[in-house]
């Protein structure tokens, strides 16, 4: 970089940052900064393969992960690592899938890949026993903690009805690319947990959401920062006793994977796989009505792949 360019860029970056800071919270700089790539499909659904293979197929039809991750960028991956249970119980995202996503990111030239979750059970046990910590480290990613308030920054949620602000994990704010990787599960009160519900793991105070109309808050937060990519793990699906599950008897092997940039669409498709209509899940309807995404699958350009 020439000196002149450097000065010009620094000054403009400074002005941008300063302006953004004066207009709102620190997080607003990054809010809604989404890479919006041209994609051949709105949603890709793959079935009957192993999780990593299905991911390869889905990314292939979308034009590779290069569409989302550019050389030198930092990536944050948010799986569901909520519970201290073994992978077979399907309470957490499949570690094999996480590993593959990380590998793809690095192949595309990612500078750094981070993985974290604000877990429900003891976080070190969750990270370890879910198999995700090892899978992520093996693939070269950095596993970050999310168990302490000190990792969270307050941001405004301008589009929120009940949720006007939230404390969001600093990695979500600082990373270039945000990949949301939930596992499809039944849920005692929200009925299902998929992409939008998974974002409860990037904020600090979940109790506020529970007090202030859980479904509305889930939809509200979906307006804040659209993940650049959502990958739904529906290989093993917990069909009852969710979200924690009691035993392996709660799990049905369905062998599905959904990839989309639209959380509402991904949740709608996952609900269908689960055997529910999207409008039965309150927050999907709410998010759809708030314009977060499209729950009417017939209006979407979907690629269906059987492996």
């Amino acid at each position, binding site marked *: 970089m020439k000196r002149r360019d450097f000065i010009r860029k620094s000054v403009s970056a400074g002005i941008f940052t300063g302006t953004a800071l004066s207009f709102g919270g620190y997080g607003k700089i990054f809010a809604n900064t989404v890479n919006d790539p041209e994609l051949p499909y709105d949603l890709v659904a793959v079935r009957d393969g192993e999780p990593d293979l299905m991911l390869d197929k889905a990314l292939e039809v979308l034009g590779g992960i290069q569409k989302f991750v550019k050389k030198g960028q930092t990536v944050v991956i948010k799986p569901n690592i909520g519970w201290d249970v073994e992978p077979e119980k399907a309470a957490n995202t499949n570690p094999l899938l996480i590993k593959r996503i990380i590998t793809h990111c690095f192949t595309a030239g990612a500078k750094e890949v981070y993985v974290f979750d604000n877990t429900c059970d003891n976080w070190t046990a969750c990270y370890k026993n879910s198999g995700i910590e090892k899978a992520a480290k093996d693939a070269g990613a950095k596993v970050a903690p999310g168990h302490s308030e000190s990792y969270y920054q307050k941001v405004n949620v301008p589009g929120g009805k009940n949720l006007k602000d939230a404390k969001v994990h600093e990695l979500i704010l600082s990373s270039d690319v945000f990949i949301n990787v939930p596992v499809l599960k039944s849920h005692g009160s929200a009925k299902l947990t998929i992409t939008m519900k998974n974002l409860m793991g990037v904020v600090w105070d979940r*109790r506020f959401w529970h007090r202030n109309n859980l479904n509305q808050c889930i939809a509200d937060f979906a307006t804040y920062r659209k993940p650049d990519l959502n990958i739904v793990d529906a290989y093993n699906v917990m069909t009852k006793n969710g979200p924690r599950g009691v035993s392996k008897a709660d799990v049905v092997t369905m062998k599905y994977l959904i990839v989309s940039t639209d959380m509402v669409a991904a949740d709608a498709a996952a609900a269908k796989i689960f055997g529910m209509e999207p409008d039965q899940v309150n927050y999907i309807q709410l998010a759809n009505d708030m314009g977060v995404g499209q729950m009417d699958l017939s209006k979407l350009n979907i690629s269906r792949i059987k492996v």
Partner: protein
Amino acid sequence: MNLAGLKKLRVGFSILYFILITCFFLDFTGLIPSSYYKTIVFLQFFPSLLQFKSLLTISSIGFIIVIIITFFYGRVYCSFICPLGVLQDIISFITKKIRRLKQYRYTYLKSYRFIRYSFLAVFVFGLFSGFALILSVLDPYSIYGRIASGVFRKTIVETNNLLVSGLQKINVYSLYHVDLKPEHWTILAVLLFFIVTIILFSVFRGRLYCNTVCPVGAFLGLISKFSVFKIELDKNSCTSCNLCSRVCKAGCIDTKNQQIDFERCIACYNCMTVCSENSIQYKLRWNKKLAIRTEINKNDNSRRQFFAITALIFAASIRKSRAQQVVTDTATKPTGRDIPVSPPGSVSIDTFNASCTACHLCISACPTHVLQPSYTDYGLIGFMQPVMDYHTGFCNFECTKCSEICPTGAIKSIKIETKKITQIGIAHFVRQNCIVRTEKTDCGACAEHCPTKAVRMVPWKQGLVIPEVTPDICIGCGACEFACPTTPYKAIYVEGNDEHKMANEPDKEKQEIKVEDDFPF
């Protein structure tokens, strides 16, 4: 025979042992496997005695080893193994360095036998009456444990947190932040009192604490009266130069009369190192045993009786009161826990209270920080003992850490399969406070966290679901109470079981769901 090397052995061993035992209290990451704990801590005299009393296992014979060693060589325990003793030695050593003294400057002290036996009597009373507070307050290992947990561990954690904040700024996450809950001020007050006492004693009078207050020291002193080998001054070669007395932390060498009060000797071997005449030696004194015993019986029996009675009156005046712990403090319906919850493996609250010495090893090691020192939860008897605090955390379903490391047997070893059905309490749902009822919105945080689905959501009205508790599969882990978002009161809380029970196995029925052959959309 030159035994000057004994001091080197003592210093080397004690420092190594002290570091190891301290590491257990400092390990906030769970790095050290549980199996290591007992191999080191089992030698702690009083915890081992308590464990033997309740479990009668081979792993709890540490105190017998200590008694045997004492019977042969005197209070080796006090200088080699007792972490509180070694801590005092370290403080004395630092004091010496600060004052730039070439030698310690101690003098012969008179024996405060009366005070020493009084504390011992009170302690013995505590042991047999089950009034554990006395044990918690006086057991030297437990005092050290609380210092290590409350001061050293917190310092390490806070330093770690400071470091983490720095690393966080450059996106380095190899270390992580640890949030600690501050204790009740009374617990800190007791801690502070002992720290100040220990420092004052050790700075000014060496090991005077061990020879006045410490009941373990007093007890081992009684045994060392009959030791096979005793450290004695050789009257023929001693020149009464007083060098040995100046380095004697216990102040038990009377050079004027060329006598060593072996009952108070803590076997530090400083005297042997400085004596140029080699006059201080371990000598076989088996034959004197009988004579001394009769003398003791004559002297001490009345005193002991006197103090046992005093202790009885003292203890009787303190009623065991189970103060009500307010779970929540302002909501529509205040909810309180009448019975506290003790950790899984503790069998019942009474046996737990009677055998825990509040060393805080489990509190230091608990991965979820659900174990916290109690204030009034158990009443006065269990002051400072660990209690399940469901506002700080909840008991991890897959964890038995505290039961694996407890040195006193207060929390007995428990298999993970048993722990998962051990009912330490039962969840109580307070519908009046529930979000679903008051706000008419979905919540379900409690059911979400429940590992057995003892708390589950059932249809209510307006298409909403509301929690329902199935008591016979609830284990009382407190996940529901911790997760419950209502303020200022919780809408679900755990009532402790006085006696722990066995819960039923949760539902593990397989469902029949057929996956369609084609995409459903």
